[in-house]
């Protein structure tokens, strides 16, 4: 794959996030490492509280004030962690953009769509108002907003959820970013609109050669547009590999259990779903050993005492890393059509 030789656009290295709270410190992300190359989309999957959003908010410098971040993240060669706001703003919204789940609250209600897109262009690129407006129109057309000239002068409340998310994407693209972080960009949308937005993101990634991190709880979303996927559980990456490796033959019992527990549209079964028992652990009281151990059918004494490290592939074993003492072997996961 040519992507494996493309330069690394975003390099996250042993990132950890701890929140100081009145009830003590809470470890949200531990040793998160991920390199995303130009033209590559990496899906970051996990349930609520797995640390997927917090990792990338740390990269963006957008964490709450009580957060302590260690480790490093680099945009090309520029370090992003522990930079002051003025310095960060040279990259944020320019080379490094982010879109969020809720397109209503992410847009300013009292500014028109055109003003909000142009704001970023004028601020970062120093364009004239007319040039910025022309560029805003071109961007709206590129993200397939219907009736774009009229939309420029509309306010966010006049647009549907799908249109608002397209506007968010237009703002994120305004300065031609090298890296786009999309945090649950389609979770608030209907499946029909979700499919439209995902194919738009796939097209943009292909045409612009952007690096993209797609944060989602839905393995189906990942399967459609990601090249690789990182599965997170309780603040750590438990499995990382190509979408084929991870989704077709998961090695971590959590990944396998998550796939099996999802009802599928192409599965005519009517029996009970193989649900994962219990709940994700409380981040204040993580179990010793493997955090998934208490919910794992394969867990033994070792899993209860020693946390399994994320181990990379051996020679000739592809690209997959997995953090498990008893990884599943060669189980080709597929369901009857």
């Amino acid at each position, binding site marked *: 794959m040519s992507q494996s030789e493309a330069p690394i656009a975003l390099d996250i290295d042993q990132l950890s996030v701890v929140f100081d709270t009145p009830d003590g410190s809470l470890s949200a992300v531990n040793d998160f490492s991920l390199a995303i190359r130009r033209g590559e989309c990496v899906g970051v999957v996990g*349930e609520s509280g797995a640390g997927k959003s917090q990792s990338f908010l740390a990269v963006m410098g957008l964490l709450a004030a009580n957060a302590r971040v260690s480790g490093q993240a680099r945009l090309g060669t520029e370090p992003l962690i522990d930079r002051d706001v003025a310095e960060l703003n040279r990259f944020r919204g320019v080379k490094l953009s982010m879109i969020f789940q809720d397109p209503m609250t992410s847009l300013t209600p009292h500014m028109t769509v055109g003003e909000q897109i142009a704001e970023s262009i004028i601020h970062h690129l120093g364009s004239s108002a007319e040039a910025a407006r022309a560029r805003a129109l071109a961007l709206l057309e590129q993200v397939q907003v219907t009736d774009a000239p009229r939309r420029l002068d509309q306010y966010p409340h006049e647009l549907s959820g*799908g249109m608002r998310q397209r506007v968010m994407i237009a703002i994120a693209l305004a300065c031609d970013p090298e890296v786009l972080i999309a945090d649950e960009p389609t979770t608030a949308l209907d*499946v029909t609109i979700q*499919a439209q937005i995902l194919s738009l993101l796939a097209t943009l990634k292909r045409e612009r050669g952007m690096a993209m991190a797609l944060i989602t709880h839905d*393995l*189906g979303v990942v*399967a459609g547009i990601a090249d690789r996927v990182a599965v997170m559980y309780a603040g750590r990456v438990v499995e990382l590999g190509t979408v084929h490796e991870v989704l077709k033959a998961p090695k971590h019992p959590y990944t396998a259990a998550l796939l099996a*527990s999802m009802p599928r*549209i*192409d599965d005519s079964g009517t029996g009970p779903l193989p649900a994962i028992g219990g709940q994700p652990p409380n981040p204040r009281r993580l179990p010793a050993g493997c955090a998934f151990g208490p919910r794992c059918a394969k867990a033994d004494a070792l899993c209860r005492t020693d946390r399994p490290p994320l181990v990379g592939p051996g020679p000739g074993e592809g690209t997959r890393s997995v953090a498990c003492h008893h990884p599943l072997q060669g189980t080709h996961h597929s369901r009857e059509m």
Partner: protein
Amino acid sequence: MNEPLLQLRDLRVWFPIGQGLFRAKRHLRAVDGIDLQVAPGEALGIVGESGCGKSTLARAILRLVRTSGGQVLWLGRPIEGWSTARVRPLRRDMQIVFQDPLASLDPRMTVGEIVAEPLRVHARELSRAERRERVIDMLGRVGLPADVVNRYPHEFSGGQCQRIGIARAMVLRPKLLVCDEPVSALDVSIQAQIVNLLQDLKRDFGMTILFVSHNLAVVRRLCDRVLVLYLGKPMELASTDLLYSQPRHPYTKGLLAAVPVPDPDLQPQRLGGALGGELPSPLAPPSGCVFRTRCAHAVAGCATTAPKLQSVGSGHEVACDLWREIKTSRETP
């Protein structure tokens, strides 16, 4: 077929809007002409995009919103126009589970009080001890230990709160359980637990379920039949097997194609076949077939006559006059 538990005849819910001194009265047709029979013990899924009228239909059946026309028949008796007092005894047999598990529980009540409340209202003949026994029994059935009765909702996770909500709805052993997006707010691993719980309860108690959801994969797993709505109108009604294996209506096909599957060999192609466009404003629905503005098969005639649900065999009904011509273009979901 047994006598239907529930029948809808041309049911309509129109919300008046924009009424002003000099403005003509307009209506938003949230539910517009639904005919339906639901058998005892059946699980019927109601699906469609946001704003298609799924929740309004469910609430109209429970008389939580006022209907504007047509009839709801409960065990063969029309209940339109009944006073609240006259409907109240029926509520014992019709209960609802809401989408947001925490917001639907009163934060000042203990779990025991929450689950006992329907009994206090509808089963006043029970003694305190009997009530307590029923509450603890029901909590056990939904997978919660007896000692939760003295705790408050905020102490529980989303999945556990949804179990409490289900226990509250089921404690009266209703004939009809309406579930309005009951798993949409839950994490993937917890969704499966709740879907399995609803399946177990249906098997054990044999109640009828109306399952409102935008998650078509969950509906396939849980429901016997599915009604597809678009802008308040029925598009397709079929057994789950037929609807998912041989969808006839272009809208149903588009909806099914849009649901992602976690398979990198299939999903990228599926993404390409997604339905274009968006739901038109329900205040200005298209003439004729309401779906025609997004339909790849629409012809001139679609703009003039609104197609009615017509049988295509085996209890499968579709509201499209062109279903014969387009059935060859079937997409496999």
